């Protein structure tokens, strides 16, 4: 039927000078999957945080099932039947699944009774929605896909009828994402209402019934998914036509800039993560490393950039060896022309509590132009940051804003600007567009190709196969720590997919 599960009327919210939500109206029909898309910083997470009681709207009304409600905090949201799975999970890492699910919903002071009941209830939910997970597993030992499942179970356990998911697939492997969508379909068929925020228009087309588009704090359109297209949505989001696949010319590979020989890396528990990997990277080419997350790509990048020590192997940068098995100073590598955009921008690439301009010099703070003797040249740092902000269209354009207050895509631009700006010989990039909107993806992809055309060597790691295929001149596929194959960018998705799953690879390696 056409009943409305959630209606937002005239929601308005500002953070100081930033007007994050402007007079937003939104209707979500019961029993549907409703997509919300928009550029980075458009205000999607803010709107959902208001609905979930994390923030208070400055003005406006929230109606749930036709009744107006005041949602002062997340408890009130839960009471109104709203559950949320956040962009960054909110689980207690060293608790078990069951303990996490019960947390805050223990029901009585004596845990034993509650535990037995919770266990039964959890079993029922698992059966009903095909959400298997071992209730006694400790969270930190679970892969992200399963952690997310726990977040969903947590919401269902609290009897949520309306489920908000903020960029749920950003961290998932394709297989995990597929499973998630099957779960969402299942939930929908049980009459639950789902709001899905994502940057991946393909997902929107595949699973949603309706989709709403936000731009710069405003709700600009709502479409029935079946009657729209990826192109139209992209244009609505950005306000202009977007190239979903950036043009690029022939590569002109020249000298070898980075050569990796028999590199082997183990993690802290002694498990081999990178197994005897060798390849060359030339000036003027982009080499993409494809693979399902967790097959050693992260460790490979860390070893090359000097953050993690390798067990054996050799790496040469510009013909000179890097002591990857001994002590490497990342600063020295930067001086020698290697720049690194790390995969984890929140913990590695940025200090979220710093002002934007402070992050803009991270790793380059030895540079003479930022220093007066031992003192920081604050004026030069800010001026430089402002210039970078203008060039990379970082929003809001405020070099003194705390980095945590930028949206995900803009945070990524801060890192990219910092690492690309100085024209390094070799650029290694992990997940350049994770959580980044289509407009910014176009921008970032263009920049990466520009770097290549200027004769720089680019090593790209991404779990997005589309991205690897769009950018790379050569594709290496990693599986279980080894390079199991090399392909041209026009290799079919199916072929690469099989390699990534380790199916083809074993045959090839055996030959």
């Amino acid at each position: 039927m056409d009943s409305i599960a959630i209606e937002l009327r005239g929601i308005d919210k500002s953070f100081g000078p930033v007007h994050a939500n402007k007079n937003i109206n939104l209707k979500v029909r019961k029993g549907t999957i409703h997509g919300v898309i928009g550029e980075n910083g458009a205000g999607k997470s803010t709107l959902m945080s208001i609905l979930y009681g994390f923030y208070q709207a400055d003005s406006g009304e929230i109606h749930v099932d036709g009744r107006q409600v005041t949602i002062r905090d997340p408890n009130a949201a839960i009471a109104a039947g709203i559950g949320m799975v956040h962009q960054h999970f909110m689980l207690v890492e060293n608790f078990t699944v069951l303990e996490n699910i019960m947390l805050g919903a223990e029901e009585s002071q004596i845990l034993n009774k509650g535990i037995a009941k919770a266990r039964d209830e959890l079993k029922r939910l698992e059966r009903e929605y095909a959400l298997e997970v071992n209730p006694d597993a400790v969270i930190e030992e679970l892969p992200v896909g399963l952690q997310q499942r726990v977040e969903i179970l947590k919401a269902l356990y609290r009897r949520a009828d309306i489920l908000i998911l903020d960029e749920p697939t950003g961290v998932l492997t394709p297989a995990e994402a597929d499973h998630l969508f099957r779960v969402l379909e299942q939930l929908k068929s049980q009459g639950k209402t789902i709001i899905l925020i994502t940057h991946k228009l393909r997902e929107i087309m595949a699973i949603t019934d309706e989709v709403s588009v936000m731009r710069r704090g405003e709700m600009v359109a709502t479409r029935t998914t079946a009657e729209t297209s990826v192109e139209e949505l992209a244009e609505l989001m950005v306000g202009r036509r977007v190239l979903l696949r950036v043009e690029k010319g022939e590569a002109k590979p020249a000298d070898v800039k980075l050569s990796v020989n028999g590199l082997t890396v183990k993690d802290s528990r002694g498990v081999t993560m990178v197994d005897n990997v060798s390849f060359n990277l030339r000036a003027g080419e982009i080499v993409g490393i494809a693979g399902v997350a967790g097959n050693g790509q992260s460790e490979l990048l860390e070893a090359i950039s000097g953050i993690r020590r390798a067990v054996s192997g050799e790496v040469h940068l510009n013909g000179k060896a890097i002591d990857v098995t001994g002590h490497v100073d990342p600063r020295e590598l930067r001086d020698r022309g290697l720049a690194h955009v790390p995969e984890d921008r929140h913990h590695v690439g940025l200090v979220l509590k710093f002002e934007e301009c402070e992050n803009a010099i991270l790793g380059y703070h030895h540079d003479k132009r930022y220093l007066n003797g031992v003192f920081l040249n604050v004026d030069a740092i800010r001026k430089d940051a402002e210039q970078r902000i203008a060039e990379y269209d970082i929003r809001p354009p405020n070099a003194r804003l705390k980095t945590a207050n930028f949206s995900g895509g803009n945070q990524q631009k801060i890192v990219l600007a910092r690492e690309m700006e100085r024209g390094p010989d070799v650029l290694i990039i992990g997940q350049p567009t994770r959580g980044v909107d289509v407009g910014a993806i176009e921008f970032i992809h263009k920049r990466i190709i520009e770097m290549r055309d200027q004769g720089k060597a680019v090593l790209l790691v991404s779990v997005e196969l589309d991205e690897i295929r769009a950018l790379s001149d050569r594709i290496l596929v990693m599986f279980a720590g080894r390079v199991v194959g090399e392909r041209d960018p026009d290799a079919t998705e199916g072929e690469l997919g099989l390699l990534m799953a380790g199916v083809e690879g074993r045959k090839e390696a055996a030959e």
Partner: protein
Amino acid sequence: MSNPYAKLPGWVEYGLVPLVNLAVAFLVAGLVVLLVGENPLEAAYHLINGAFGRGEYIGFTLYYATTFIFTGLAVAVAFHAGLFNIGGEGQAYVGGIGVALACLWLDQTMPWFVVFPLAIIGSALFGAAWAFLPGWLQAKRGSHIVITTIMFNFIASSLMVYLLTRVLKPLGSMSPQTRTFAEGGQLPKLDWLLGIFGLDIGTAPFNVSFLLALVAAFGVWLLIWRTKLGYEMRTMGHSPSAARYAGMSESRITVITMMISGALAGMMALNPIMGEQGRMQLDFVQGAGFVGIAVALMGRSHPAGIIPAAVLFGVLYQGGAEISFEMPSISRDMIVIIQGLVILFAGALENMFRPAITRLFSTSSRRAAVVAQTKGA
């Protein structure tokens, strides 16, 4: 994004919230006073009067504050690099050796303004040396700094007993202390500073090391927010993985930070040794190293917060002494309870009233927004 507290205006964040916390601490302290059958208003009167009632009292309050500024800064510097230096007590104690050596050496031949700079360097060096070892152990051996600095407090205490009973004590004296310094080993009082306000300093030992403390506070601000080293310290304090990525050496920063922290703690020794007693006695630190932790917490590790927090604790020390003097049933321990309550509410329970205040503010600013809208229409 996960921060459930909206951002508050500066004056609320740094003014109202601490004041509310402080008010509650005093309310609860008042209840405790009631419990022992005394009049809390009378106690409050003695506290305020004892701290500010006369020029002399103010002099004492500021004398204590000077000590706490040094130890508060010491803790704050380490905090910024993510290190919890609990060893201020021991570092200040050992710092005293540097002061005593400079004074014993030159007090009879040189004026104070020659001895003072040497004593500053001496106290800083000895304090830094005492903090170097825990820093080095953490950097190279992974021994946790909280544990090692506590142990070093005990070692410092034994070491000083040994030195003051065997080495630095003049022959034939019965008390564990150095000889009394000649004029060159005693700092001039800041009677003229209080004189500007028409106050008479009386016997209060308020001395030039207060000015040094202010300079140190400014120096710490410069160090943390305006130098490359400070930038590296803050990076490490917020995110060790980002520091590694940026090529900062964790062990180098740990050792240097601890030495700076120890030097600041060591400089505290100038105030009681050269500024008050004119000799080094057993136990001259008297817990100031630990008070520094509370001061740094309350002052949010920012010099501009540490100075008022140190003055507050100066008030509690000086006014508290007055309470126990005037109201005998309130013992010295009672004063410690009150100080503990302040630490509890201003430090540990800092966020207790924040949600309520935040709510108050978001509703009032919403109303203001509505008013502005209707006006605009």
